[in-house]
Protein backbone atom coordinates (compact mmCIF):
# COMPACT_ATOMS: atom_id res chain seq x y z
CA UNK A 1 0.00 0.00 0.00
CA UNK A 2 1.31 3.41 -0.92
CA UNK A 3 1.45 6.17 1.62
CA UNK A 4 -1.60 8.40 1.12
CA UNK A 5 -0.97 11.94 -0.12
CA UNK A 6 -3.01 15.11 0.21
CA UNK A 7 -4.43 14.40 -3.27
CA UNK A 8 -6.11 11.24 -1.93
CA UNK A 9 -8.16 13.17 0.61
CA UNK A 10 -11.80 13.85 -0.21
CA UNK A 11 -12.90 17.08 1.38
CA UNK A 12 -16.56 16.12 0.90
CA UNK A 13 -16.12 12.88 2.80
CA UNK A 14 -14.22 14.69 5.57
CA UNK A 15 -16.85 17.37 6.01
CA UNK A 16 -19.56 14.70 5.92
CA UNK A 17 -17.85 13.13 8.94
CA UNK A 18 -16.43 9.97 7.34
CA UNK A 19 -14.02 8.53 9.96
CA UNK A 20 -12.04 6.50 7.42
CA UNK A 21 -11.33 9.71 5.54
CA UNK A 22 -10.25 11.45 8.72
CA UNK A 23 -7.89 8.54 9.43
CA UNK A 24 -6.35 9.12 6.00
CA UNK A 25 -5.98 12.81 6.79
CA UNK A 26 -4.17 11.89 10.00
CA UNK A 27 -1.76 9.64 8.12
CA UNK A 28 -0.98 12.34 5.55
CA UNK A 29 -0.21 15.15 8.01
CA UNK A 30 0.68 13.61 11.38
CA UNK A 31 4.42 13.32 10.74
CA UNK A 32 4.67 16.98 9.77
CA UNK A 33 2.59 18.14 12.74
CA UNK A 34 4.64 16.01 15.13
CA UNK A 35 7.91 17.41 13.73
CA UNK A 36 6.60 20.94 14.19
CA UNK A 37 5.70 20.18 17.80
CA UNK A 38 9.07 18.59 18.42
CA UNK A 39 10.96 21.58 17.02
CA UNK A 40 8.80 24.10 18.86
CA UNK A 41 8.58 22.44 22.27
CA UNK A 42 11.82 20.49 22.20
CA UNK A 43 10.66 17.18 23.66
CA UNK A 44 8.64 14.16 22.44
CA UNK A 45 6.00 14.32 25.20
CA UNK A 46 4.99 17.90 24.42
CA UNK A 47 5.19 17.19 20.68
CA UNK A 48 2.73 14.34 21.16
CA UNK A 49 0.39 16.64 23.08
CA UNK A 50 0.51 19.16 20.23
CA UNK A 51 -0.15 16.36 17.75
CA UNK A 52 -3.12 14.91 19.63
CA UNK A 53 -4.68 18.28 20.43
CA UNK A 54 -4.31 19.40 16.82
CA UNK A 55 -6.23 16.44 15.43
CA UNK A 56 -8.81 16.45 18.25
CA UNK A 57 -9.44 20.09 17.46
CA UNK A 58 -9.56 19.36 13.72
CA UNK A 59 -11.99 16.50 14.27
CA UNK A 60 -14.30 18.80 16.24
CA UNK A 61 -14.23 21.56 13.62
CA UNK A 62 -13.86 19.76 10.30
CA UNK A 63 -17.56 20.05 9.59
CA UNK A 64 -17.22 23.82 9.60
CA UNK A 65 -14.22 23.81 7.25
CA UNK A 66 -15.05 26.29 4.53
CA UNK A 67 -12.10 25.80 2.28
CA UNK A 68 -10.90 29.39 2.46
CA UNK A 69 -7.41 28.01 2.85
CA UNK A 70 -6.07 24.57 1.95
CA UNK A 71 -6.56 21.71 4.39
CA UNK A 72 -2.83 21.69 5.05
CA UNK A 73 -2.76 25.39 5.93
CA UNK A 74 -5.82 24.94 8.13
CA UNK A 75 -4.15 22.08 10.01
CA UNK A 76 -0.86 23.95 10.39
CA UNK A 77 -2.81 26.90 11.74
CA UNK A 78 -4.38 24.70 14.43
CA UNK A 79 -1.04 23.06 15.18
CA UNK A 80 0.79 26.40 15.44
CA UNK A 81 -1.85 27.65 17.88
CA UNK A 82 -1.62 24.47 19.95
CA UNK A 83 2.17 24.74 20.04
CA UNK A 84 2.04 28.42 21.02
CA UNK A 85 -0.53 27.77 23.74
CA UNK A 86 1.62 25.05 25.25
CA UNK A 87 4.72 27.25 24.98
CA UNK A 88 2.96 30.10 26.75
CA UNK A 89 1.96 27.74 29.50
CA UNK A 90 5.50 26.44 29.89
CA UNK A 91 7.42 29.65 29.30
CA UNK A 92 5.19 32.62 30.12
CA UNK A 93 8.18 34.95 29.83
CA UNK A 94 8.58 34.38 26.10
CA UNK A 95 7.01 37.01 23.88
CA UNK A 96 5.68 35.19 20.85
CA UNK A 97 3.69 37.90 19.19
CA UNK A 98 5.98 40.80 18.76
CA UNK A 99 9.46 41.22 17.60
CA UNK A 100 11.35 44.32 18.53
CA UNK A 101 12.59 46.24 15.54
CA UNK A 102 10.60 44.03 13.22
CA UNK A 103 11.40 46.04 10.13
CA UNK A 104 14.96 46.84 10.95
CA UNK A 105 17.76 44.73 9.68
CA UNK A 106 20.17 45.53 12.44
CA UNK A 107 20.72 41.95 13.55
CA UNK A 108 21.44 40.79 10.04
CA UNK A 109 25.12 41.63 10.14
CA UNK A 110 26.94 38.47 9.14
CA UNK A 111 30.25 38.20 10.96
CA UNK A 112 31.50 34.87 9.67
CA UNK A 113 32.46 34.22 6.10
CA UNK A 114 33.64 30.63 6.03
CA UNK A 115 32.30 28.85 2.98
CA UNK A 116 31.29 25.55 4.56
CA UNK A 117 28.66 25.03 1.86
CA UNK A 118 31.27 23.11 -0.15
CA UNK A 119 31.41 20.31 2.45
CA UNK A 120 29.71 17.07 1.37
CA UNK A 121 26.24 16.38 2.74
CA UNK A 122 27.46 13.21 4.52
CA UNK A 123 29.75 15.37 6.59
CA UNK A 124 27.19 18.11 7.22
CA UNK A 125 24.64 15.56 8.36
CA UNK A 126 27.01 13.31 10.28
CA UNK A 127 26.19 12.89 13.97
CA UNK A 128 28.03 16.06 15.00
CA UNK A 129 26.88 18.17 12.07
CA UNK A 130 23.26 17.18 12.56
CA UNK A 131 23.51 18.04 16.25
CA UNK A 132 24.87 21.49 15.37
CA UNK A 133 22.05 22.06 12.90
CA UNK A 134 19.36 20.93 15.35
CA UNK A 135 20.85 23.08 18.13
CA UNK A 136 20.96 26.10 15.83
CA UNK A 137 17.26 25.67 14.94
CA UNK A 138 16.41 25.21 18.63
CA UNK A 139 18.17 28.47 19.48
CA UNK A 140 16.04 30.57 17.15
CA UNK A 141 13.54 32.75 19.01
CA UNK A 142 10.12 31.06 18.93
CA UNK A 143 8.49 33.68 16.71
CA UNK A 144 11.20 33.24 14.07
CA UNK A 145 11.39 29.48 14.46
CA UNK A 146 7.73 28.93 13.66
CA UNK A 147 7.99 30.91 10.43
CA UNK A 148 11.18 29.10 9.47
CA UNK A 149 9.73 25.64 10.19
CA UNK A 150 6.58 26.19 8.16
CA UNK A 151 8.29 27.86 5.23
CA UNK A 152 11.68 26.17 4.95
CA UNK A 153 11.18 22.80 6.61
CA UNK A 154 7.60 21.98 5.70
CA UNK A 155 7.65 23.90 2.43
CA UNK A 156 4.59 26.15 2.78
CA UNK A 157 4.56 29.22 0.54
CA UNK A 158 4.98 32.70 2.02
CA UNK A 159 1.23 33.21 1.57
CA UNK A 160 0.32 29.92 3.26
CA UNK A 161 2.73 30.61 6.13
CA UNK A 162 1.14 34.03 6.58
CA UNK A 163 -2.34 32.46 6.61
CA UNK A 164 -1.34 29.75 9.06
CA UNK A 165 0.24 32.20 11.49
CA UNK A 166 -2.11 35.12 11.01
CA UNK A 167 0.74 37.38 9.93
CA UNK A 168 1.11 39.65 6.93
CA UNK A 169 3.26 38.35 4.08
CA UNK A 170 5.73 41.18 4.69
CA UNK A 171 5.98 40.11 8.28
CA UNK A 172 6.64 36.50 7.25
CA UNK A 173 9.37 37.61 4.83
CA UNK A 174 11.07 39.73 7.50
CA UNK A 175 11.02 36.94 10.05
CA UNK A 176 12.16 34.39 7.49
CA UNK A 177 15.16 36.49 6.52
CA UNK A 178 16.12 36.97 10.16
CA UNK A 179 15.70 33.27 10.91
CA UNK A 180 17.80 32.22 7.92
CA UNK A 181 20.54 34.72 8.74
CA UNK A 182 20.62 33.70 12.39
CA UNK A 183 20.85 30.00 11.50
CA UNK A 184 23.54 30.62 8.92
CA UNK A 185 25.56 32.57 11.44
CA UNK A 186 25.30 29.79 14.04
CA UNK A 187 26.33 27.11 11.58
CA UNK A 188 29.17 29.28 10.28
CA UNK A 189 30.44 29.66 13.84
CA UNK A 190 30.37 25.89 14.23
CA UNK A 191 32.13 25.17 10.94
CA UNK A 192 34.64 28.00 11.17
CA UNK A 193 36.18 26.14 14.10
CA UNK A 194 36.33 22.93 12.14
CA UNK A 195 37.24 23.88 8.59
CA UNK A 196 40.82 25.05 9.21
CA UNK A 197 41.63 21.88 11.11
CA UNK A 198 40.18 19.90 8.25
CA UNK A 199 42.27 21.61 5.59
CA UNK A 200 45.46 20.93 7.54
CA UNK A 201 44.94 17.19 7.31
Amino acid at each position, binding site marked *: *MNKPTSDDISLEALVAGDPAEFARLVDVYSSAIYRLGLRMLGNPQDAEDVLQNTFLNALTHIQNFEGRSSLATWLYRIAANEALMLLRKKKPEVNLDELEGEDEAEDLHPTRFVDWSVLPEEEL*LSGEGKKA*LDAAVAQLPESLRLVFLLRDVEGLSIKETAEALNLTETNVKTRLLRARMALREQLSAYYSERLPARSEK
Partner: protein
Amino acid sequence: MIEHPHTKCEELLGSLSAYIDGDLNPELCRELEKHLAECDNCRVVLNTTKRTIDLVQTPLEKPDLPEEVRERLFKRLNLDRYLTPKPK
Protein backbone atom coordinates in the same frame (compact mmCIF):
# COMPACT_ATOMS: atom_id res chain seq x y z
CA MET B 1 29.90 59.25 -5.41
CA ILE B 2 31.25 55.79 -4.95
CA GLU B 3 29.23 53.84 -2.45
CA HIS B 4 31.17 52.27 0.36
CA PRO B 5 31.17 48.51 -0.35
CA HIS B 6 30.08 47.66 3.18
CA THR B 7 26.97 49.81 2.85
CA LYS B 8 26.13 47.97 -0.35
CA CYS B 9 26.43 44.59 1.39
CA GLU B 10 24.12 45.69 4.19
CA GLU B 11 21.61 47.05 1.73
CA LEU B 12 21.53 43.94 -0.43
CA LEU B 13 21.50 41.46 2.42
CA GLY B 14 17.90 42.41 3.06
CA SER B 15 17.09 41.06 -0.42
CA LEU B 16 18.97 37.80 -0.05
CA SER B 17 16.07 35.76 1.29
CA ALA B 18 13.72 36.92 -1.46
CA TYR B 19 16.48 36.23 -4.02
CA ILE B 20 16.83 32.63 -2.79
CA ASP B 21 13.06 32.20 -3.11
CA GLY B 22 13.11 33.62 -6.66
CA ASP B 23 10.87 36.36 -5.38
CA LEU B 24 13.01 39.42 -6.08
CA ASN B 25 12.10 41.97 -8.73
CA PRO B 26 14.31 41.82 -11.84
CA GLU B 27 15.98 45.16 -11.23
CA LEU B 28 17.10 44.33 -7.69
CA CYS B 29 18.00 40.86 -8.87
CA ARG B 30 20.43 42.26 -11.43
CA GLU B 31 21.88 44.64 -8.87
CA LEU B 32 22.37 41.84 -6.36
CA GLU B 33 23.96 39.52 -8.91
CA LYS B 34 26.35 42.26 -10.01
CA HIS B 35 27.34 42.79 -6.40
CA LEU B 36 27.69 39.05 -5.76
CA ALA B 37 30.11 38.76 -8.67
CA GLU B 38 32.39 41.29 -6.99
CA CYS B 39 31.95 40.53 -3.30
CA ASP B 40 33.38 37.28 -1.90
CA ASN B 41 31.79 37.69 1.52
CA CYS B 42 28.29 38.18 0.18
CA ARG B 43 28.75 35.17 -2.08
CA VAL B 44 29.70 33.07 0.94
CA VAL B 45 26.66 34.35 2.83
CA LEU B 46 24.44 33.40 -0.11
CA ASN B 47 25.97 29.93 -0.53
CA THR B 48 25.88 29.05 3.15
CA THR B 49 22.33 30.36 3.56
CA LYS B 50 21.14 28.25 0.62
CA ARG B 51 22.96 25.23 2.04
CA THR B 52 21.35 25.76 5.45
CA ILE B 53 17.90 25.62 3.85
CA ASP B 54 18.83 22.50 1.82
CA LEU B 55 20.02 20.74 4.96
CA VAL B 56 16.84 21.21 6.97
CA GLN B 57 14.88 19.71 4.08
CA THR B 58 16.78 16.41 3.99
CA PRO B 59 14.88 13.26 5.05
CA LEU B 60 17.20 12.89 8.05
CA GLU B 61 15.88 16.19 9.35
CA LYS B 62 12.29 15.23 8.55
CA PRO B 63 11.72 11.92 10.31
CA ASP B 64 8.38 10.11 10.18
CA LEU B 65 6.09 9.73 13.15
CA PRO B 66 7.15 6.91 15.52
CA GLU B 67 4.69 3.99 15.20
CA GLU B 68 3.74 3.98 18.90
CA VAL B 69 2.93 7.70 18.73
CA ARG B 70 0.72 7.01 15.71
CA GLU B 71 -1.09 4.22 17.54
CA ARG B 72 -1.77 6.40 20.58
CA LEU B 73 -3.02 9.19 18.31
CA PHE B 74 -5.49 6.89 16.54
CA LYS B 75 -6.74 5.59 19.90
CA ARG B 76 -7.17 9.12 21.27
CA LEU B 77 -9.23 10.01 18.20
CA ASN B 78 -11.32 6.83 18.52
CA LEU B 79 -10.09 5.76 15.14
CA ASP B 80 -8.48 2.47 16.29
CA ARG B 81 -10.40 0.43 13.77
CA TYR B 82 -8.78 2.40 10.96
CA LEU B 83 -5.31 1.75 12.30
CA THR B 84 -3.97 -0.14 9.33
CA PRO B 85 -0.33 -1.24 9.16
CA LYS B 86 1.75 1.85 8.64
CA PRO B 87 1.76 2.78 4.96
CA LYS B 88 5.23 2.93 3.43
